């Protein structure tokens, strides 16, 4: 069952200005579940035919880029420079919308495995490189408390796994 919506990601990004992106597992997001059954949430504007890239319109009109990866993750970013307004698509086939979301959900569930703790929602904030030449960047691993609707820094035993699954280094280079 989805325990997050994109507004929860927006709140987290706005509260932590050192970071520009937040990545979570796709199966935790309500909007991904909607897309899987062919429903396009009102705040999302699709930017491609694959149903992977979107623009998200926040409460105060601020826009964010939103991407679903078939590897099982969903990413919200403050930088929308590579998402020009003109490329927004006005209409899309339901099947196309659902295909990527469906693959993302399936892979997210597979990554977590059968023994996943119910209610455990994790995410990772991504920021700038440590310095100009650095190949490493600032991040912050997080846990979401769905009861209190609050994100908090997480340094438990899943940190290494989260970093590998949510922000694989090979995929970024």
């Amino acid at each position, binding site marked *: 069952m989805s325990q997050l919506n994109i507004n929860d990601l927006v709140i987290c990004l706005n509260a932590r200005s050192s970071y520009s992106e937040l990545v979570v597992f796709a199966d935790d997001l309500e909007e991904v579940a909607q897309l899987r059954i062919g429903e396009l949430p009102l705040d999302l504007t699709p930017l491609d035919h694959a149903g992977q890239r979107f623009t998200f319109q926040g409460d105060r009109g601020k826009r964010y880029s939103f991407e679903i990866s078939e590897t099982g993750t969903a990413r919200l970013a403050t930088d929308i420079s590579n998402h020009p307004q003109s490329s927004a698509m006005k209409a899309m086939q339901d099947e196309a919308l659902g295909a990527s979301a469906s693959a993302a959900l399936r892979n997210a569930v597979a990554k977590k495995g059968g023994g996943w703790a119910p209610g455990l929602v994790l995410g990772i904030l991504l920021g700038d490189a440590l310095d100009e030449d650095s*190949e490493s960047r600032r991040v*912050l691993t997080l846990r979401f408390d769905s009861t209190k609707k609050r994100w908090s820094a997480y*340094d438990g035993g899943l*940190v290494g796994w989260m970093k590998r699954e949510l*922000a694989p280094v090979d995929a970024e280079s």
Partner: protein
Amino acid sequence: MLRPVDGANAPRLITQGEIEVVVGHYREAMARYEEAASVLEHRLRRELRAAAIKTLVLSRAKHPDEVRLDLEYQRASDDPAEPELTYTKLNADLNRSITDLSRATVIVYHPIDEQAAFEMILRRFPLADVPNPIEHQEDRQRGSRALVEIDESFDRPSLRGSIVEVKVASISSHIFNELGADIGYSPTAEEHPENVAEGIEDLMYLSRLTDRAVHRLLEARRTRLFDPTEPVNDPVDLRHALEQMVGHTLTGDFQRLFRLLDTVIHPFTAGALADLGPAETLLEQGVQIATGLGLHETGGDDDVLCYTLSLMDSFGPEFQELASNWRGPTNDIKNAILGWKKA
């Protein structure tokens, strides 16, 4: 009126019967010595893990038969005119006369870590107020020994004042020390049959050879971290990488530092550590910040705490959020992080 015979109250050598009485008293109180050793074992394991020093930690109380042998040996070498060991003294405080009734053994994986482990013990545990509380063996047997006292910091009032002997040795030295002593090591090896003496010699050389092989293995692992793309996988890697950067051993809670840095840097590699800045400079800055926070007493000899404080300008809010979620008893590094304020 009867008058005491001259010299009746003068100290005299302990008799065999008195030794049996003392051993009997010890047998009755043995559970307390077992417990003291066990309490120290748990604390040692926690501290060594935090310091990222790989070890095996064992503990036990001395067997009553060993106590008897020890007392007989001491009596044999005692001065009958002015004996050190008397029944009165043993009855008053057995633990201060025989300081190894409770024992803990720290067996380090890597010979090079023996010194670091021993220094950590001297820094984090109170030494007993007895003659020669520290001893190093460098001849045939190799290892270090400290006599630690269970004080109020252990939160065990019933054990307060107990002395625990802590021995530190590498795995191979431990094997030689134990087997050599058990089979019959003595300084005059001629007393043993030739084949026993040869066997003990072989064991000693084998132990030295193993130490050298393990040392080479460790060095190979350490030099891997010269490559900036190499991941820092655990607190031990972190300690090695930082020690390489500064050129000497470092102290402190590497387990917590690893948790902090692994949470805020991706990928966490040897190169990422270098990107944070020269470790030596950061350590110097950290000492100044620790002094400013009034942590000079604890911060001055805690490299990890100082290094962490020097990173607070970059990661202060994140570290404070993480530290505030740490469970368990409070500690120096948590206090320092939570007490830090942005200048």
